[in-house]
Each structure stands twice: as C-alpha cells, then as structure tokens.
C-alpha cells in the first residue's frame, strides 16, 4: 500500500479523511482537486506553479514538511489571509512522511 491518510478541512469547515497516493507524483493541491473538495476554478488556478495562492492551506499537525522554495515564500508574502502555518498545497508533494497530515484550506480570495 502506498496510500497515506490526510485530513483536509474544506472551506465550508467540513473535515474529510482521504487516502492520498504517494506513487502518482501528486501534490496536495491535486489531491484536493481529485476529491473535489473545492469547486473547480477556485483552487490550483495557475496549475501548480506557485504563481497564485488559490491552494493556500494551513498546516495544523506537527509534520516536518519540505522547506519552502523562494517562489512559494514570495507568493505567500503577497497572498491574503496568510498565517505562520500557511503553505501552498501545490508545493507539497505527497510523500510517506505526510501520513496523518492535517490541513485546512484557506478562504477563497
């Protein structure tokens, strides 16, 4: 089994526990899209290039995640509703270390 469990709270406040594959080269934004946890056109607008902040999410568990790239940091510095635990979902590549991750989607801008 190469699936991990992730808890994603959508913009309506509903928490979904979903299985995310680690072997399909997916990122968190794509997982959210695949499960349709946010309406099409409201997430992943730039396609995953860290060039919009539509996939911003708050990380609520204590997982060690990959460090932010300059692009992600720059984008988050221009985004709205940014908190200390904000990340861009498109920059979080699904990996085994993320098992049990808890995230919440940031409000739509």
């Amino acid at each position, binding site marked *: 089994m190469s699936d991990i469990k992730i808890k994603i709270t959508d913009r309506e406040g509903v928490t979904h526990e979903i299985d995310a594959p680690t072997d399909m080269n997916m990122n968190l934004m794509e997982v959210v899209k695949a499960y349709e946890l946010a309406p*099409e056109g409201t997430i992943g607008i730039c396609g995953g290039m860290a*060039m919009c902040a539509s996939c911003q999410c708050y990380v609520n568990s204590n997982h060690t995640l990959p460090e932010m790239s300059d692009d992600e940091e720059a984008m988050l*510095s*221009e985004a709205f509703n940014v908190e200390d635990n904000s990340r861009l979902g498109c920059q979080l590549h699904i990996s085994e270390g993320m098992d049990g991750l808890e995230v919440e989607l940031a409000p739509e*801008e």
Partner: protein
Amino acid sequence: MIKTDILIIGAGPTGLFAVFEAGLLKLKCHLIDALPQAGGQCSEIYPKKPIYDIPGFPEVLAGDLVDNLMEQIKPFQPGFTLGERADSIEKLDDGSFIVTTNKGTKHHAPIVAIAGGLGSFEPRKPQLENLSKFEDNGVAYIIRDPEIYRDKKVLIAGGGDSALDWSIFLADVASEVTLIHRRNEFRGALDSVEKVQELKDLGKINLITPAEIIELKGKEHLSSVVVQKTDSKEHIEVEVDSFIPLFGLSPKLGPIGDWGLEIEKNAIKVDNTLDYQTNIPGVYAIGDVNTYPGKLKLILCGFHEATLMCQSAYQRIFPDKKYVMKYTTVGGITGFDGSKKEAPKAVVKAIE
C-alpha cells in the same frame, strides 16, 4: 460599432488559434480581452515558463508560443479590443449578437466564441474594511495616467515588478513615495530591486518592510493609511493622497456567468460531440472556459476545439454552402492582407 464574422472573447492561445482556423475559411475575427496585451495566462502569469506538450514543440516558452501564434494569424488581420472586459450580450432578431464591453465598445457578429480561459483578470484587492468606499477616492489598482500623481503623496503596496517599477517611476513625479511590502525581499527584475535600493538610500522612496496596511482613514477622500510593522507590531500612520495596492491579478469568470449560459464547475457547458456550442445557438465556448465529460484544460485541446468551432460557425453563417476542408499543404494560406503562402511548386523538367 465593430463588425466581424466571429467575435472571440479572450485573446489567449485558444482564441488566437481560432483566428487562424477561421481565416482558412475566409472568416474574419475580432478579439476582446480584459488584459492590455494578447496571450492570456501565457503572457500574464507565466511568460517565462517552458511548455512541453505543444505538439511539434519539444519545449517552448509560453511567451514565445504567444508570439508565434500572433505571427501565424497576422495574414488574417484580426481586430483587437484590449484592456476591456466583455460585459453584456444581446441577441438581435436576425440571430446575430451585440457584445458590449465595460467601456461601452460595441461589437456585432453572427458568431460569438468565448475563449475566456479562467475568466477576465481583475486586480487582487487587499482585504480592508472600507476599501470600496475609497475606490476612485484615493485608492486605485491600475495606474492609467501617472500625471495625476504629480506632487501628490503616494503609497504603493506590493512586492512584485509592478510595485517596484511604479515606485521608481513615481519617485520623480510624486512629492512622496512610500513602498510597503510584507517581506524585506522583493521578487522582481534585479535592476528594479537595485534601483529601488538606490532611491531609498537617496531618500526618494520611503520603504517600510516587512509591514502591511491595516486601516484606511479619511472622510470622503482617503487621507491616511495605518501601516503595521510585521516584526514590532508598531503602527505607523502615513498621510497619503493615493494608495495603490499592486498585488497582481486574479481571474474571475465575471459577467459572462450572467449571460444565460449553462455553467457547471465554474465553466461553460458545451456540446463536445459536435462543435463546442453552448446552450445559446451561435455562442460557442472553447479552451479552458468550457466543460464537458472528460474535459482537459490543455492548450492543445483548446486548439482542437477552436478548429471544430470554426467549421460549425461557417455552416451557421453560410447554411447553403458546402465546405470542403483543404489541407494547408495543398491550398496554402491566402491572407486578407493579400499575402500568399504556399508550398513551392515542383520543377518539371526533363533530364537529358
């Protein structure tokens, strides 16, 4: 009134390629786009990003793809209404349409092809309580005429190229320029970053970082903004005549959503078994803006959709004509500008 055969809403890659396919059928096109330049997302969001799935191009920069498309459609002399957003559509008794932009420009065509991508790009607005009250009363998102800032106190917020470039430009025009950004680092061309540093050292730009605007003050017109320093939480009140937030653009489906088109998942439903027509006969939707079972938002799919749309548009405009598809390798390209491109004729000569 601008008259054309196919009115294309959206000048991204799909809209541009539709001009080519229409041109082969001798149909004229006019494009409307809310952005000041053609190319859509490719020009606005990621001009320097390479694309690897355009057939025949192992690698092409998004900006170069747009340049190539513009070159490809040049013989068909498309018209452009740029910097205006298509706002309303009206169906006339003869079945043709009038599309009016937010600036009142009217376009008349028998066919409307919506190639609107993710929608029209609108400025991203900071979330401040009384922001809308001061819009056009001291708050602007786009600098149209820099002269109106002459000898005024201007505050710019943002960390990208436009914030840097306008700060530099206005440093010579305005009486006072303040630049605010949430971080100390700016993401812009190195030249611009260095120039801002220089102007800051000369005292011509007042730089406050890392900080953000938390409050707007004023009676009718904006008179000051409250800036909060991120590290010390200290509040600074800056007297200003103008506040210009430059946080980039984000796409919104916008008024097209109210045209009576069937919308699903923020996209326009079309008939993918035939011609990408919407529920309004004569109105088509192609590229990222449409949806149908199995839809993929890829440029190459937009090209295909544009091609089939043009065939259907031709049949609508000329219901009595029979059209036989011609390969460009056979028929070449005859532009509306009189230009002709075709395969060189083989030489027929006996060898003695």
